[in-house]
């Protein structure tokens, strides 16, 4: 059942003009407020001239593949990210390292790990699915390419992505 509010207008309301003037007062007050606010303090950040600095940590931007301190990839090519990816943006080719004897044995690693940034919708499911914390979405939002090929980035580019907050 739809709720219907019984509104009764008195003669003053029925003229409508007071309400119109009230509305016009509100709009003009906003006009002057914005007019006398210096551009740096307005809500709009004029992007190429000024950049947003306080990007929250949970922002989902460019991907990064994490590495161990010794430089080896954390990724084990388990396909969890590729499975979770709703846009089919991740392509993995695994490699059998046959490395069975080390203290931290690593049997499997990606030979090819590509992300098609044009297909990616930055949902963060890959980050969520990753069992090794290998793939993360950083807060870099300036992702621009001049060709479709350049949008498909591999391991070399992904490990070079800076961590959150620069570095």
């Amino acid at each position, binding site marked *: 059942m739809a709720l219907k509010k019984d509104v009764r207008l008195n003669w003053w309301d029925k003229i409508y*003009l007071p309400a*119109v003037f009230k*509305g*016009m007062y*509100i*709009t*003009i007050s*906003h*006009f002057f*407020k*914005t*007019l006398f606010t210096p*551009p740096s303090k*307005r*809500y*709009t950040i*004029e992007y190429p001239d000024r950049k947003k600095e306080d990007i929250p940590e949970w922002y989902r931007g460019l991907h990064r593949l994490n590495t161990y301190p010794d430089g080896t990839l954390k990724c084990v090519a388990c396909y969890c990210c590729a499975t979770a990816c709703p846009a089919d943006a991740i392509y993995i080719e695994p490699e059998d390292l046959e490395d069975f004897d080390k203290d931290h044995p690593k049997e499997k690693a990606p030979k090819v790990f590509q992300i098609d940034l044009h297909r990616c919708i930055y949902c963060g499911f890959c980050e969520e699915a990753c069992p090794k914390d290998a793939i993360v979405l950083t807060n870099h939002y300036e992702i621009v390419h001049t060709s479709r090929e350049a949008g498909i980035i591999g391991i070399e580019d992904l490990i070079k992505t800076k961590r959150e907050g620069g570095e």
Partner: protein
Amino acid sequence: MMEGLLNPQTFMVFKVVVVFVAVLTLVALATWAERRGAAFIQDRVGPNRVALFGKIRIFGLGQPLADGLKLFFKEDVLPLNVDRVLYTIAPVISFIPATMTFAAIPFGKPFVKNGIQYFLSILPPDTNIGVLYIFALAGMGVYGIIIGGWASNNKWSILGAMRASAQVISYELAMTLAVVGVVISAGSLRLDRIIEAQNGLWNIVPQFIGAIVFFVSMFAETNRLPFDFAEGESEIIGYHTEYMSMKFSMFFLAEYANMITASGLFVTLYLGGWHFPILDSTVIGSVVAFVIKLLFVLWCFIWVRWTLPRFRYDQLMRLGWKVMLPLSLINLVIVALFYAYGG
């Protein structure tokens, strides 16, 4: 040197050129003001990136120029199955009356030089039909819309045009009746007499109801929000759906030119024309006073547009016939009674 050139013929040419250029410049400025004003009202920034030589930003004042250039260079496609002749002349029919109307409006105090009286309006004020001329031309504007909508051979265009014409007819009645009050109080159809009659007390004070009716009808006549039925850019499709390039921009210019003319008319009829305390003691001052008043009314157009939402069509018609028309009649009766028995 200038004194030597001053004779009625050169002055006439001078007036025509200045008024035409001023109106067109004002059109460009109005589009800029519309966009910037809307942005500020909505706490945004608005167009500000068009810069001179790629460096000097000048608050986005270059935007109308850029828009004009863009529209000028757009491909002009003639849609299939349109009525070619009407399709082409419709924007012209819309645009020309809009600019011509301004010819009758006196924009400054008349002055006498070398024994000759000079009037600051293009039409000589002694054409005793000033107000009628304006309404005749204002009525022409809607032809452009109807012809454009019909010639487009598009059902939505013709529907938009139908809405516009119904609206214009409805509100023209109320508007004209409101103006009759002004004509009675001045005792003349001549616009300079009407202005002269307002010396000291502007019509907006004694004929407040008429002023409101005229003001509201003005919005309807120029197809501006909240009566934006001809175009209905956000929800309903308007008469110029099939138009593009310069033909579209003609309609676009006509809308703003209409706004300027309507503002000028409102200033003339209700805000005392070029009258203003102190300022109107000189000719230049009177022109300045007129322009300031005109700009204020113009700003009201923009201001109202970004405040009020659009009416529903039946609401528009109800307002026109059941509220505006009776109100203008009441105004007329009051004014007539006052001048018959009171004044």
